[in-house]
């Protein structure tokens, strides 16, 4: 069996998910064939979706936006996860010949064993504690270089997992890879004293033992700031985060005193690409104004609300103002 010749460890000191993903991709792009890297990182409150997931379908974007939770898309597959500082992320990077998922999972299992927790492998790539998931793993391959990364839940706010990963029923016809809900558990439940630092140390020891090699710190002089900045920009752009192939369709409906409306919005790249409002109201020109203003807006409730409020202020007194006000309030009620 092939073995790497050099073992490196790198700890990110930042909590920004876009920067952390950029660094991860940089490490993958610049990996030498005989190197094996373990990269450890933590994100501030972020929902991280899989490469081919539709965020409109997978998470409560509006609640996240209001509460300052970030959305990030990773390069690997699989489902949506919630990160906060109670979670430690690991990434194993190796060229194809040195990449061995069962061995890599063993590093995690052995590290936890030294901390006094017995965990088991379950299914293809999961590790469970008392039958509950505390670690999710995902994989990505580009050319000869492979990446295996995953979460380890130490003390994640589980209430918030449910809060941000719940989806609304108004979202229709959305394509993409679905998440699979799982029962989760924090390591703190069985190891009340555990911290991310303990775990990082145990992982480093288990890593060295697994390969029978001493590890070194990854030489930060290898990191190219301009390339990492460019990658960070890519990871934080709406086109990447919201996804180009994840056009979503939304349909909202309500009856008002002045008539009924059915609003159909299509979004792509995080932008409203078309809006149609069907209405039996006697004021189609007002409805048309609203329809026109929605097209081209970022698909964000705050932006929609601002635009409608402005339209309302500009409207003539009376029926026009009333109808636009009703529609603005109606959008405020929607889950987007």
């Amino acid at each position: 069996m092939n073995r790497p010749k050099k073992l490196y460890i790198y700890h990110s000191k930042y909590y920004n998910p876009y920067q952390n993903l950029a660094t991860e991709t940089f490490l993958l792009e610049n990996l030498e064939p005989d190197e094996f890297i373990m990269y450890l990182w933590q994100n501030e409150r972020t929902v991280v979706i899989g490469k081919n997931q539709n965020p409109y379908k997978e998470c409560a974007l509006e609640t996240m936006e209001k509460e300052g939770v970030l959305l990030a898309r990773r390069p690997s597959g699989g489902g949506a996860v919630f990160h906060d500082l109670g979670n430690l992320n690991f990434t194993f990077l190796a060229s194809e010949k040195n990449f061995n998922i069962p061995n890599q999972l063993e590093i995690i299992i052995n590290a936890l064993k030294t901390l006094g927790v017995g965990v088991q492998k379950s299914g293809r790539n999961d590790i469970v504690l008392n039958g509950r998931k505390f670690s999710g793993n995902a994989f990505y391959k580009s050319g000869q270089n492979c990446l295996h990364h995953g979460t380890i839940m130490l003390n994640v706010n589980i209430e918030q997992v449910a809060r941000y990963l719940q989806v609304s029923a108004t979202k229709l016809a959305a394509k993409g890879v679905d998440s699979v809900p799982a029962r989760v558990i924090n390591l703190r439940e069985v190891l009340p004293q555990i911290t991310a630092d303990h775990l990082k140390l145990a992982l480093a020891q288990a890593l060295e033992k697994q390969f029978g090699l001493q590890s070194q710190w990854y030489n930060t002089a290898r990191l190219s700031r301009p390339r990492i900045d460019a990658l960070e920009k890519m990871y934080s752009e709406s086109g990447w985060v919201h996804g180009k192939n994840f056009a979503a369709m939304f349909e909202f409906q309500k009856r008002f005193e002045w008539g009924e409306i059915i609003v159909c919005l299509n979004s792509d790249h995080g932008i409203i690409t078309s809006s149609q409002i069907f209405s039996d109201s006697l004021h189609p020109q007002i409805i048309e104004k609203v329809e026109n203003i929605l097209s081209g807006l970022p698909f964000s409730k705050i932006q929609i609300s601002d635009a409608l409020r402005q339209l309302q202020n500009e409207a003539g007194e009376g029926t026009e103002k009333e109808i636009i006000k009703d529609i603005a309030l109606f959008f405020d009620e929607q889950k987007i």
Partner: protein
Amino acid sequence: MNLPADLLYTKSHLWVKSLEDGSYELGITDHAQKELSSVVFVNLPEEDDSAELGKVIADIESIKAVSDIISPFSGNIAAINERLADEPGLVNSNPYETWLFKVSDITEKEEFLSPQQYSDFLE
């Protein structure tokens, strides 16, 4: 080994088919689909995107991993296989009939392998 004789192959386990109008169809080989196992999503470029030799142009997500498709051509994406949006599993069930996209206006391409050369490469 299932390797149609009218196709050419790459070391990254793609097949390409030269069409009469000078464009190429491209897909993944039977070997590649077996390695990936069940495909759950095919992330394709858009029509009229430009493809650059050696750069990531698409990716395939299976129950195991996301794997990048590195473009063996520089050219223009002339068409994408729209069926894959709803039936990504066609890549597994019929790898040589299931083209991912077509490339036209080719300015550069990598050196392709004959069925025999690809078969030798696999061993």
